[in-house]
Every structure is written in structure tokens, then in C-alpha cells.
């Protein structure tokens, strides 16, 4: 009997994602950020888990490589927290799309998240996770709250 379809499908998607993430290293390493093979594998698995949790379906390599390209030059990501930050950004991305009922394109949402992350949130994922779709729209329109830096009391990366 041949391999179950679902597993084959997952494998082909994971392979595409891993290839894309390896490719993203070429850009991110210029900023001191690199994903190791175990981290790439873990991110690939985390993606399936996040999609399942958020009740979403994704095609192709998905949003993770886009997040890597968009955030790798952020001054708020430490090299040792790069993979975990990407993972949380991905989870937030899916959650935001659900909250916004898919009103954003991938690029718009990533742009909004990046603006807030580097602006008001000052790199705090805790701050990011409390954003509403309205906050994200405003960020996309240009209000990322540069004037009021977020002070995180927790040990966020």
C-alpha cells in the first residue's frame, strides 16, 4: 500500500518550507540571524501545529519565509531568539488573520506587524499578541506608535 496521501502532502509542503527557510538564511545572516537545521525542522512542525490550532489551511511554503525576510533586519531580535520569535510571529499571524476575517493580504499583515513590533512594541511579542485588527489597520496606515515605546516587564525576547 502506498504512503497515505495526507502524509505525502505534509512531507512535500514541509520540504518546500525547509528549502525556503534555508534560502532565507542567506539574507538573515547578514543581520546576524541564522536558522539551524534542527530549528528549521522544528519550525516546519510548529507550522502544522499552528495551522491546526487556528483552524487554517495553507498552501505552498506558507508565510514563514515571508516573516523571516520581513523581520530579519529588526533591531529587536536577538540571534538566540530568532527561531522562537519567528515561531511566535507565525502563530500571531494566523491568529490575526482569523481575527480580521482574512481582511489583510499576507504582505499587509506582515507590514503592520513589523511596524508595531519595531515601533510601539519595541520588540515585545506580548505587546503584539494583544493587538486588535483595528490596531493593525492603523499601523498599516502609518500609526505604529513610535512615540510611546512599550516597556515590557516580562522576560520577553
Amino acid at each position, binding site marked *: 500500500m502506498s504512503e497515505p*496521501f495526507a502524509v505525502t502532502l505534509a512531507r512535500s509542503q514541509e520540504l518546500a518550507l525547509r528549502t525556503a527557510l534555508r534560502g532565507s538564511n542567506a539574507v538573515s545572516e547578514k543581520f546576524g540571524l541564522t536558522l539551524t537545521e534542527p530549528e528549521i525542522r522544528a519550525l516546519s512542525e510548529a507550522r502544522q501545529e499552528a495551522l491546526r490550532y487556528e483552524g487554517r*489551511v495553507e*498552501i*505552498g511554503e506558507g508565510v514563514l519565509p515571508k516573516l523571516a525576510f520581513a523581520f530579519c533586519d529588526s533591531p529587536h531580535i536577538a540571534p538566540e531568539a530568532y527561531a522562537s520569535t519567528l515561531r511566535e510571529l507565525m502563530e500571531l499571524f494566523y491568529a490575526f488573520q*482569523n481575527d480580521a476575517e*482574512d481582511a489583510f493580504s499576507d504582505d499587509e499583515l506582515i507590514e503592520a506587524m513589523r511596524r508595531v513590533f519595531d515601533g510601539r512594541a519595541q520588540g515585545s511579542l506580548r505587546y503584539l499578541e494583544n493587538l486588535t485588527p483595528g490596531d493593525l489597520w492603523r499601523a498599516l496606515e502609518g500609526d505604529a506608535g513610535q512615540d510611546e515605546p512599550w516597556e515590557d516587564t516580562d522576560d520577553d525576547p
Partner: protein
Amino acid sequence: MTHDLYPRQGDAGLAASRLTGESPAAAETADWTQAESDLLNARLWALLERQIRRDSQGDRSSLRAEAADELLASIRFTLRAHLAARGLPQRALLTGDIHALFRAAQETVLAQTNETFSLYRLAQETLRTLGSRTLASSLAAVGGFFTAYDARLNAHAIPAMIDYPPCLPVSEALEGVAYIRAYLVRLLTENALLLRLDPLREGRLLARACPGYRILPLNLYEPVAANVVGLSLLGGGETLLEMSRAECSRVYALLSSCAPGEARARLRDAAARAGERLGMVGGAASDYLSDVAAALYPRIAAAPESVYGVFAAC
């Protein structure tokens, strides 16, 4: 959806079985090998990816599982419609360019939509509504369907609020334009009988059957057809519409002494004679009246008094 399309052990063949759904060809995939099922699933996934890109105009790489479910249902409906229209076997999905096949299938659905729109125009021009508001509003809703229907991405959907019930219901398994087509065919078939009778007498008959027939979502055909068949069973009647209580009782007496099979056969014979008298020999309207006549039997046979609920007595 996530659990269906996303990796999970034992999902093999899922999309294949879903594709065939309730179609008569469902059994055709029962003997498929695992490899064939896997191949079909992979091809369906390729179509789903294409439709997701199209739905989001290439802007989004993910979507809600429910939305993906809807897109997949649309793909299944479109392919089924095409295979049925062309008389193709399910295995046609396993060979050749699946995207080309899907484009052809979409053209099939569009052609069926155009044909169904012609039926709608015919219904608009010819349906005798006899003052029924629900029939009029449902017909208007069918008109709205053609504006709202998205044959490309939501071909299985029925964007119309339809309240008026045909005498014999349209199968719940039908989707999209196939449902609307079947609904219109029902209405036009029923109308074929209504047009052969005097509308004033029909109106009076309906008022006797249910005074609120103009407002309530009640089928116009059934009470008329019942009296036509009942009077035909008794040998005629000038108009085939006015039926006395005594005649109702005679129908009960005639049929209650028969075995169910024989009683149904007599009702079908009566429907055929009525059809001949009304110039409906053979064809869909005649067959439909025969089916409706046979379906009256359990209600007639339920109790002596029950005939008064089946036939609208004067």
C-alpha cells in the same frame, strides 16, 4: 477542514471519497487502489491551491479551514457536474491535465447556468401563481440567484432564499445550479397541470383546501392534483376540480378495500386517465401526476375521515 486536508495518518482516500459524495458514481471509486486514491487526492489538492490563489487574488497563502472546505466543495460539485454531463467515468480524473479538465468542467457549469436561466425566464413568463406570495417571492429569489451565483469559486452554493415548496421536494443532495434547475423543472412541471384548468376554480379549490394559501408557503399543485386524480378515479367530473364530501368518501371506499399495491396502481391509472383528458399524455407532467397520485395513498388510507384532508371538498 484542517483535520481533513492537513496531514493526519489514515486520511488516504478522503478527498476521493468526498469527490464522489452522493453521486450515483460513488460506488465507482470503491474498488480504487490506494495509489489511485492518493493520485486523485493530490490532483484535488492542486486544484484547491489554484482556487485559493484565485479566491485571494494571490494575496494570501492561507485561509480559514471553513473557507477551504467551501472551495473544495465547489471543486467537487464542478467536477461531478462535468463528468455526469459528458458521461465520463471517475477515472477520467486520474489522467491528463487536471487543470484543463477543471476549466472544461467550469465551462460545463456555466453552460448549465445559462440553460437554467432560460428555464427561469420561461417560468417567469408562464407560471400561474394564483396569488401565492411565496411562489412569487421564491421566483424572484431564483432570479436573484443568477446575480449572486459564483460558478467559479462557489459553484455548489445556492445563494437564494426559496420558501415555496414543490409538491415533490427537490433532493437535498443537489447543490448549486443543479438544485435551482431541478426546482424550476418541478415548478414548470406542476404548472403544466395548473395551466390546463380554470384559474378561478383552482383559486376556489385552494381556498377550500387552505384559506391562507396566498400567504402561507403552501404548494398550489398538490390540492389541485389530488382532486383531479380523485375525480378521475370516480370516472370523471366535468371540471376535475369540484369534489363533494360524498365523492371523497367513495374514493376512500374504493381504495380501502384494495391491497396497497393495487390501490397505488388504481391511483396511477386515474392519473393517466386525467392526463389524457387534459392533454398531458406521456412526458414529465404526466409522470409527475402519476407519482403524486401514488403518494396520496397513505394519507387516503389512514382513516375514513382522512380523505377530507386530502381532497378539497365542496
